[in-house]
């Protein structure tokens, strides 16, 4: 395999080095990701992401990013942004895509294009309180990848499977997590 020629833009060596370094420093591996959100009007809110904590200290992205969240007009909202549940789909797809690139680089597979569509199915009778047996959130999420790469179909399937195995967003969607919401 022409591992040297493969370049998916992922610095796998840095990731492997970090893995080795953090094996002996579990405290440095404890990260806190952060976002702040401010209500605008109606169902519209603006969230900002910049700082996070990791490697034992406060860190920051190069720039701050803002996210507008709202609901579409058919929900009688002003549609000033995508819905929060759509942000979840963005999170899942982008996490799996990053994983595909990293795993491909590690396995010496050159990617040419990686595209995916995500669909989350939801019965809104849950959030509207029409039927208490219907859950609020998604009851089914499907991600469909189209990948063009120097690899067999099986190798590509293995890339996508491994990416799910190591995806933080996939994990937090498929497994429960403790959530505390408090007022200060």
């Amino acid at each position, binding site marked *: 395999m022409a591992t040297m020629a493969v370049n998916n833009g992922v610095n796998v060596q840095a990731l492997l080095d970090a893995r080795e370094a953090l094996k002996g420093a579990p405290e440095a591996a404890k990260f806190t990701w952060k976002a702040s959100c401010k209500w605008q009007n109606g169902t519209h809110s603006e969230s900002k992401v910049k700082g996070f904590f990791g490697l034992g200290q406060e860190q920051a992205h190069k720039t701050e990013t803002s996210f507008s969240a709202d609901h579409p007009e058919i929900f009688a909202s002003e549609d000033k942004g995508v819905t929060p549940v759509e942000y979840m789909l963005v999170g899942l797809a982008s996490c799996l895509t990053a994983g595909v690139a990293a795993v491909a680089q590690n396995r010496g597979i050159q990617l040419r294009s990686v595209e995916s569509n995500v669909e989350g199915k939801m019965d809104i009778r849950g959030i509207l309180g029409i039927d208490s047996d219907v859950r609020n959130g998604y009851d089914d999420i499907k991600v469909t990848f189209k990948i063009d790469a120097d690899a067999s179909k*099986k190798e590509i399937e293995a890339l996508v499977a491994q990416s799910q195995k190591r995806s933080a967003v996939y*994990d937090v969607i498929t*497994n429960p997590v403790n959530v505390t919401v408090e007022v200060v």
Partner: protein
Amino acid sequence: MIGAGHAGLAASRFLTDRSIDHVVLERGDVANSWRRERWDSLRLLTPNWQSRLPGLAYDGPEPDGYMSAGEVAALIDRFARVANAPVRTQTAVTSVRPAADRYDVTTSAGGFRCRCVLLASGACNVASVPGVSAGVPPSIAQFTPFDYRNPDRLPEGGVLVVGGSATGVQLAAEIHQSGRPVTLSVGEHVRLPRTYRGRDVLWWMDASGLWNQRYDEIDDLTRARRLPSPQLVGTPQRSTLDLNALTAMGVALVGRLATIRDGRALFSGGLRNVFALADLKMERLLATFDEWARATGRDTDVAAPERFEPTRVPAASPLQLDLRAGAIRSIVWATGFHPDYGWLDVPVLDEKGQLRHDGGVVDAPGLYALGLPVLRRRKSTFIHGIEDDARDVIDHLAGYLAGESALASRA
């Protein structure tokens, strides 16, 4: 030697060959765990012809059969006699402690001072039960593979079996056949067909040399050592017991048990991916076998290559089960095992309680181990895998003793 199972006895045989004075301490009887810590129907995963020990090949009438626990105990008994091993039974080790350049070993039947100690007490002394079991409602009966004997000892009603390795699939099948509806919670697992191209799949592991792969040639040794046992069972029919076989029986599959909250068991929604991972890994392994058969001209000795149906994803797999609702009456934790080193007063355990060793040479002079997963080879924990490991480890031990004696005579 601590432990008179196949590992301690194999080591004893090589020590006797070198005329090295030693004793094998056994808390109970020879092959104790095979006599007292196995469920009734348990059989080895390896066919009989593979159940060979140093100088003792299988000579029974059924080379392709699989030994029951009682037959394994008889085999190990016979090996102890053939090897003329100096075993002290009913001698439980209560502590091993360094004392200058020796070890002090305290037992229920007196003390020993020795230059070397070999830990051969096994990898499966304690059932690993996840912490979430604390949330199981008191109305549910809980079992581990150590207190499970047969389905009749379980309460009537539904059973949740947690774990999809060899133990989990075997217990799920036999409990379901007893008329108790079984739900099997499956995380990452190793899928294998019982036979491939007409041969036992473990024949392929052996013949292709895969089982002989050394620990220092494996990319991710930590992962290899944590690999769960394959979904196999030893039956006269040589049938495959993968998840599709369980689905066909009527066992309900759910995702990995993530937690138990307010009496509800919550399962991962990632079932599809653990199926995909196991299917892909099995296909890769079978392709490796095919390639080996082609490359070594064995293609005509075996049947044509086979491919197996992907693991069927249940149409509807519940993400939670209310454990107080009555449908589930018992839980069987088939969630693995770990060794018990409570008596080992030598600082050689890592932060996860695993022994720090390099191919059985423990991180303390004169201390050795055998019979742990991928100790020196992929086959380390199988009966026939002990011979090469024991020979290598005893080689090292003999070298250590010789070095020590040379130092002493110079002093």
